[in-house]
């Protein structure tokens, strides 16, 4: 890849730079290795030919999102934010993020001044592909609840790129729901920059759609910053669920928690990659990570990659991962009390998710409760 000239000084130039270099009618097949599988995994003997590598065909990006709350053009964002945003996007080497940059027709800025807001990503005109770029800013000391509802329909590929700056002492709870129709494929890339004592708690619910992927990058830049990811991935049919997180501890006393659970029936598959990096000379960083997959059918597949890269000895890090089936004893116990197998499964699945969602803000409950019940049932029955 060519390097971006350091003279590039605006987002527009950067977008033009990439649009000239990336063909608008590309086939994802050519680039799949940049997408999901780290190169080292391929060389290490892991087959890149997983079902989620199916070519998406030629796609053209359009913009498509609806937001409740005040939305401004990027030019209305404060200069310091524009600068930060630009420098961040210059550094991106993710292939799809570059595509997004090149083909997202506009960049929007959400100041997030009220205490809750909602963004719906949907392609109202049912076009083949959408690209969305958003910048969110949580002011110092503010507390915010943000809901992102991804409702792509008949979309070959929806790619949404969201950057969230958390100013010092601010708090954010973010609920991301992937609820796509059956043929749609969607990728949401979230990038968090956390200042001193800021906190971000993310709930990633991947409920339906042929392919959904949440890729999260969090820079814990400020001391005592906190990041937590709670992912729930439900898959059935031939769906694929994907969660990739890269949490970088760049400051002392920073803390991260990752909890990710996938529940898979039929021929569904999931790939969960959790990458925790602790930079050298960081003191007292804490990181805990737990990745789990439950397989409900013989043809379901799960991949877990819980990865730690620790460059400091003043740390307390642990990770765990497990893949298996539902507790057969418990299933049997419930059935012996007269509950049908599917109902019993549903109950156990619900129990498995309870821990993950116990701290979900009440403001999100109206959106989540019924949906979860519905999709858990779908997964339980397959």
């Amino acid at each position, binding site marked *: 890849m060519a390097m971006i000239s350091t003279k590039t000084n605006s987002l527009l130039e950067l977008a033009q730079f990439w649009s000239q270099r990336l063909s608008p009618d590309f086939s994802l097949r050519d680039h799949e290795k940049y997408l999901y599988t780290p190169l080292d995994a391929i060389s290490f003997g*892991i087959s890149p030919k997983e079902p989620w590598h199916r070519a998406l065909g030629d796609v053209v990006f359009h913009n498509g999102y609806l937001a409740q709350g005040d939305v401004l053009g990027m030019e209305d964002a404060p200069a310091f934010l524009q600068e930060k945003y630009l420098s961040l996007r210059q550094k991106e080497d993710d292939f799809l993020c570059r595509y997004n940059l090149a083909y997202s027709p506009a960049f929007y800025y959400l100041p997030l001044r009220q205490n809750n807001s909602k963004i719906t990503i949907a392609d109202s005109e049912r076009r083949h592909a959408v690209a969305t770029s958003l910048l969110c800013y949580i002011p110092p000391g503010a507390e915010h609840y943000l809901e992102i509802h991804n409702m792509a329909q008949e979309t070959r590929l929806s790619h949404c790129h969201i950057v969230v700056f958390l100013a010092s002492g601010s708090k954010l709870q973010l609920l991301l729901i992937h609820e796509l129709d059956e043929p749609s494929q969607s990728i949401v890339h979230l990038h968090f920059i956390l200042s001193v004592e800021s906190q971000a708690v993310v709930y990633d619910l991947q409920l339906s759609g042929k392919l959904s992927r949440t890729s999260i990058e969090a820079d814990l830049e400020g001391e005592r910053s906190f990041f937590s990811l709670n992912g729930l991935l439900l898959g059935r049919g031939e769906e694929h669920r994907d969660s990739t997180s890269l949490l970088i501890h760049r400051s002392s006393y920073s803390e991260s928690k990752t909890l990710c659970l996938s529940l898979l029936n039929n021929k569904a598959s999931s790939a969960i990659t959790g990458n925790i990096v602790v930079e*050298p000379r960081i003191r007292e960083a804490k990181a805990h990570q737990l990745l789990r997959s439950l397989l409900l059918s013989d043809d*379901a597949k799960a991949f877990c990659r819980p990865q730690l890269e*620790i460059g400091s000895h003043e*740390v307390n890090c*642990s*990770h765990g991962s*497990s*893949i298996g089936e539902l507790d057969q004893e418990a299933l049997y116990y419930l059935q012996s009390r007269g509950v049908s197998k599917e109902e019993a499964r549903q109950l156990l699945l619900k129990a498995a998710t309870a821990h993950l969602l116990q701290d979900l803000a009440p403001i999100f409950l109206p959106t989540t409760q019924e949906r979860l019940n519905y999709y858990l049932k779908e997964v339980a029955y397959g």
Partner: protein
Amino acid sequence: MKEILDKVQEDYEAGFVTPVEQDILPKGLNEDIIREISRRKNEPEFLLKWRLAAYEAWKKMPEPKWAKVIYPPIDYQAISYFAAPKKKIKSLDELDPEIRATFERLGIPLKEQEVLAGVEGAPVAVDAVFDSVSVGTTFKEKLRELGIIFCSFSEAVANHPELVEQYLGSVVPVRDNYFAALNSAVFSDGSFCYIPKGVKCPMELSTYFRINAAGTGQFERTLIIADEDSYVSYLEGCTAPRRDENQLHAAVVELIAMKNAYIKYSTVQNWYPGDREGRGGVYNFVTKRGLCKGENSRISWTQVETGSAITWKYPSCILKGDNSIGEFYSVALTRNYQQADTGTKMIHLGKNTRSTIISKGISAGKSVNTYRGLVRISSKAQQARNFSRCDSLILGSEAKANTLPYLEVKNKSAVVEHEATTSKVSEEQLYYLRQRGLGEEEAVYLIVSGFCKEVFRNLPMEFAVEAQKLLSVSLEGAIG
């Protein structure tokens, strides 16, 4: 003092230059060289063909770059591929004083030190040193009675070509990876072992006792076949630091366990790690893989890695037979500028297969210690079980520890569990031990050896004692 050290260092570095002697082939690798290697070794046609196929494959392969290790490009045409006689040093006085000190601390007898260091006039094989020739001979008698074949690879090619032809490359095919392909094309010698049906090998087979031709270290090949209902425990390497003028090492080890067979393979690797600034040192790119071919077979890898500038090594198990068991126990200690990228692959193919991974990484100084492991449960592997535990201990503020497991499960009846922690030696533990009168280094050593206990207890007894000692010597000065 410093001058002396520099002088010794120079001498050591000089050791890495291939000596010009009459009997060696020109440097570099091409088809002619491979034909010549095969001709000089009097090899049968099949082996030459096999080597050439490996060479063809190697030429087309890129050198792997995914491991978390950094080293300058290797010039493969600057290496002499025919077993060149090792450059000898005149006496132990020419040796890196640090290595000498280590010899002393490990309590290695003088004669043995000379062999390990490659001093002129010293016997070639270590077994000659140990209390005599008789040990070697009686040992061989005993094995012959049981029908066990244990010999150098060349001897096996000469005397048992049918076994070699049948099994060579059956676990690590020539195209498996870059370094395995290179080894397949040019390997010089190594060990061969066959345990017949129903035989439990009564002693630990050790490379100590092997007829150790000079120059086998660089591209070594080991093939062990345990036939039905047999058992063997095999030890490789030794705790003493081994000096070798060849910087690049690319060995291949293949294990095959038939029905009900059990192979226990233990390694202590302590190749020269380079000096305090990270200069010199061996690059150790090893492919080790075991095939649990028959039902109820079991392969167990135990390794203690303290040497080499770069370690790239993943002793693996392919669990093909139903109810077969794969195990991997590892301690990897890195210090100064050492880089280790090591771990295992457990490929579950058969029903009720089980695997256990226990990895303990200790990084000190400016070293990088990476665990990389793959657990794959294929769709046909009903009721497969895996448990992995990977703990890292970081000593000092400039060391790095990475844990990179890959878990792939395609069968719902599998249970795969992975746990890992990264920590330092806690202040509380140190304080407690020091309050009982133990010095700081002693206390750290006791805590670290406790950390490694789960692995050490899988080593054969006397090997475990040596490994403990090696650990304590390696930790000296590593703290801070």
